[in-house]
């Protein structure tokens, strides 16, 4: 063990607080970021060691590990304290975010250790989302790198306002003040517009302990605080108690008929008994009559407190509703702009639908457009059609129902959201709301002549009959027969035909995956208008992607969208080949032809499955009509239900 590891003379140990006192101090959450080999893990290991968070048995395990797999010769390899997973040890890199805990008599700390590898930017954003300060590690020999800029910009976007510029490995440049000063000057020039409130540069050696908790004798020219000294004293605002009151309802508390409370964590501001509040989504007002906790009622509570509010009036405020200060209401909108950090391998393409979780609300949402891609090295904004893994962009989002939010710059709690893939359930994006688009606070008006009125006059219930299947399976043939029979029965119908639409409405679309998705989306919207008119809409589209069809279904009321799978094997379809398309595809004249080269995803549970190897399409059409007739006579959807959609 090198002499410099001796901790006998450290401040943190000599002024230990009395052991019987509960630690009466705040918390600082911070993250460390930097490039591979800048020494992040070593720095965190060193911090843990110097604050006595490393105990004897862990230290002896560390000595063993250092000898076995360490990269520091005979010295203790502090990085091994924090690189937990087997694969990481083998590769010598951190592959995930890890959280570490230590405390000094002045403060408790939670450290997010985030990776420096470029492809893991999403983890940096993850760590930064719950941190108030970032330590940016810089190798004194290398100065500012692309990664330093990238991490600074991400930290700034996520809303971190305090930076420590940890200029590490200062021993390897001979403790040279000129090198230090040059890096600090470079950084200040770069970061001047990033909105940081404090930037503290410190010359360090994580490996040897210079300026970690005691001022290093090797840097007499440096008069600033040590790293721990700065972390203990830097002033950060952990709770947003100054903003307007917000409580996203998390759980409605109803133990019996006499008690009805709204449980949740206060997301912003303060609330007192007697305060007026409004349920932002519904616009219903009331006053706070009690603030209930297990430990007794409170006269007031503030941001960060997990409480249960009882209101004076019986207003409805389900999970997802936001109780707010009526004088400073949050935004209620279905369209807004947002910054998004994309976290999935699959590209973010406009038109796709995701689940959006904001506060305690989860709603289906679509990214309508990508305004620009933000280059996190140069801050340049470029128009793009998609965002890839780790890309950051400004996008327009549309939610299926109005959502209550604040701009992220005003409230992290009510401005942050995640996007969840509805089919894999993966978290694919992290978002920060910027502003509402178009008209806000506008509620739809019920028209005098609504869809119920329009369908009543036709004595039918509107429906969409969606025929899907391989080219040549017989979709159009069957759909035509079905329409003729329905017409004969006095039903009001219309037919949407793929080829016809592609010559008109969709003439701008090609056959790549994104265009196919958009094609189907437009058809769905047209079908919706037709059902609003009270019609039975027949659609015959290959529509090869299950996800596209499932998204369509969501645009309609339950039982309104009838998926009809015209099921015939590709060989049978190719043999029929009514338009000669299979032959052309096989000759390579048509790219991305479903059935030849491009996959068709059959429905998992269609309302109707037709065995299209059956030679008589009449029999198949009769089956469809029989089912449709039972549905058509069903009760009309109420106007209220449909206007929600």
């Amino acid at each position, binding site marked *: 063990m090198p002499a410099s590891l001796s901790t006998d003379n450290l401040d943190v140990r000599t002024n230990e607080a009395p052991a019987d006192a509960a630690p009466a101090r705040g918390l600082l959450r911070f993250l460390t970021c930097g490039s591979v080999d800048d020494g992040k893990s070593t720095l965190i290991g060193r911090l843990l060691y110097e604050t006595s968070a490393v105990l004897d048995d862990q230290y002896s395990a560390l000595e063993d590990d250092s000898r076995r797999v360490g990269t520091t010769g005979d010295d203790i390899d502090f990085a091994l304290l924090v690189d*937990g997973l087997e694969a990481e040890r083998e590769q010598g890199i951190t592959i995930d975010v890890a959280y570490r805990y230590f405390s000094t008599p002045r403060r*408790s700390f939670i450290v997010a250790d985030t990776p420096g590898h470029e492809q893991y930017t999403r983890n940096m954003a993850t760590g930064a989302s719950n941190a108030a300060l970032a330590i940016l590690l810089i190798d004194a020999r290398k100065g500012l790198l692309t990664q330093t800029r990238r991490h600074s910009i991400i930290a700034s976007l996520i809303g971190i306002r305090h930076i420590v510029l940890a200029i590490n490995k200062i021993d390897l440049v001979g403790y040279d003040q000129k090198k230090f000063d040059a890096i600090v000057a470079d950084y200040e020039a770069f970061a001047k517009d990033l909105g940081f409130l404090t930037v503290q540069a410190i010359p360090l050696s994580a490996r040897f302990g210079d300026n970690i908790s005691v001022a290093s004798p090797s840097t007499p020219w440096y008069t600033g605080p040590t790293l721990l000294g700065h972390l203990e004293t830097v002033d950060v605002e952990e709770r947003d108690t100054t903003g307007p009151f917000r409580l996203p309802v998390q759980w409605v508390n109803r133990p019996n008929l006499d008690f009805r409370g709204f449980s949740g964590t206060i997301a912003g501001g303060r609330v007192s008994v007697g305060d007026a509040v409004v349920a932002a989504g519904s616009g219903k007002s009331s006053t706070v009559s009690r603030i209930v906790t297990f430990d*007794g009622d409170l006269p007031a509570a503030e941001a960060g407190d997990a409480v249960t509010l009882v209101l004076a009036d019986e207003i409805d405020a389900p999970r997802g509703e936001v109780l707010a200060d009526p004088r400073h209401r949050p935004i209620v909108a279905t369209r807004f702009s947002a910054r998004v950090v994309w976290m999935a391998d699959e590209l973010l393409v406009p038109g796709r639908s995701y689940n959006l979780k904001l506060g305690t609300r989860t709603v289906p949402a679509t990214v309508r457009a990508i305004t620009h891609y933000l280059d996190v090295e140069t801050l340049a904004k470029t128009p793009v059609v998609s965002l890839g893994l780790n890309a950051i962009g400004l996008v327009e989002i549309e939610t299926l129902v109005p959502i209550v939010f604040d701009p992220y710059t005003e409230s992290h709690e009510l401005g942050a959201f995640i996007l969840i893939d509805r089919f894999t359930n993966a978290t694919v994006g992290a978002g920060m709301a910027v502003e509402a688009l178009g008209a806000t606070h506008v509620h739809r008006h019920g028209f005098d002549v609504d869809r119920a009125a329009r369908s009543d006059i036709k004595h039918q219930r509107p429906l969409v009959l969606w025929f899907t299947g391989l080219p040549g399976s017989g979709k159009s043939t069957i759909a035509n027969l079905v329409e003729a029979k329905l017409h004969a029965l006095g039903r009001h119908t219309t037919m949407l035909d793929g080829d016809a639409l592609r010559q008109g409405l969709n003439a701008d679309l090609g056959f790549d995956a994104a265009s196919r998705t958009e094609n189907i989306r437009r058809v769905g919207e047209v079908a919706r208008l037709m059902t609003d008119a009270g019609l039975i809409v027949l659609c015959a589209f290959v529509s090869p992607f299950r996800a596209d069809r499932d998204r369509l279904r969501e645009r309609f009321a339950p039982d309104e969208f009838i998926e009809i799978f015209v099921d015939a094997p590709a060989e049978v379809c190719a043999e029929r080949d009514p338009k000669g398309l299979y032959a052309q595809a096989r000759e390579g004249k048509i790219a991305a032809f479903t059935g030849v080269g491009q996959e068709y995803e059959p429905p998992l549970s269609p309302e109707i499955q037709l065995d299209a190897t059956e030679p008589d399409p009449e029999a198949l059409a009769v089956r469809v009509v029989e089912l449709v007739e039972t549905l058509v006579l069903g009760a009309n959807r109420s106007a209220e239900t449909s206007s929600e959609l």
Partner: protein
Amino acid sequence: MLSTDSLRADQGTPVTTGRTPTSAASARRLSPHLAWLEAQSIHIIREVAAEFRKPVMLYSIGKDSAVMLHLARKAFYPSKPPFPLLHVDTTWKFREMITFRDAIAQEYGWDLRVHVNEDGVRRGIGPFASGSAAHTQVMKTEALKQALDAGGYDAAFGGARRDEEKSRAKERVFSHRTASHAWDPRNQRPELWHLYNTQIAKGESMRVFPLSNWTERDVWHYIAAENIPVVPLYFAAERPVVERDGALIMVDDDRFPLAPGETPQIRKVRFRTLGCYPLTGAIESEAVTLADIIAELESSSVSERQGRVIDKDTGASMERKKREGYF
């Protein structure tokens, strides 16, 4: 049988049952750090109740579980927590733990389900007969999976903390498990802000750790501040122990295979963590109150899991167990 009265956490104030909330929140007496941890944990617990179909709270009877149960009661007050407790009984727990478990469930009026891997019992699996690894695999990991499958639970709370062990440090608060309960550390969902992705496919489940950000220190300070009852084994007392591989193992019943001529020594010991008695090392201690325990902890130089025999196989043994479905 332990009377409710002896569930006192400390030698000081007795635990009140069905407490009447009077003073303005003992939360006000908490340090800002503990108050923050408490609120964050309550938020997590409520989120599970709101978003999962059938949650269950794993009750291990230890100090962390004690804190987790306390937080769950706070989260839903004046309602009762809307989920049952589940204890996976390896049949080798300390007898005092079982007594305490039953007394707590009764005092809180909480639905407690106990699961034993009966197949393991029939096969005679135990820490002495089968070794710690096989015992843990069959009676703990397999038993847990059986109980979760049988109950059809889609979310299970556990009291694990990130500061316990290196591989735990990277675990999410909401940790996704496949239909076969496996954990894939390479395929974890990023967890941003306080927005937990609770969506799972049919048959899959979530393990949820409301105490992720607590340290052992925080747990004891909180137990003291909130006067939470804990198993008396945490307090030093004269107990019969023998030394095995450098660890002091308590002879808790007559299944303990003593060497010929070996007699247990009576020593003043306590436990920092509680598990199966043959696999849990005691420490010599004079700490008989919570204040003593905290004082001892502040000056301690070994970690709490040091007494756990099952962690010691190799540096990464916890990660392997977790991938197989261990909590």
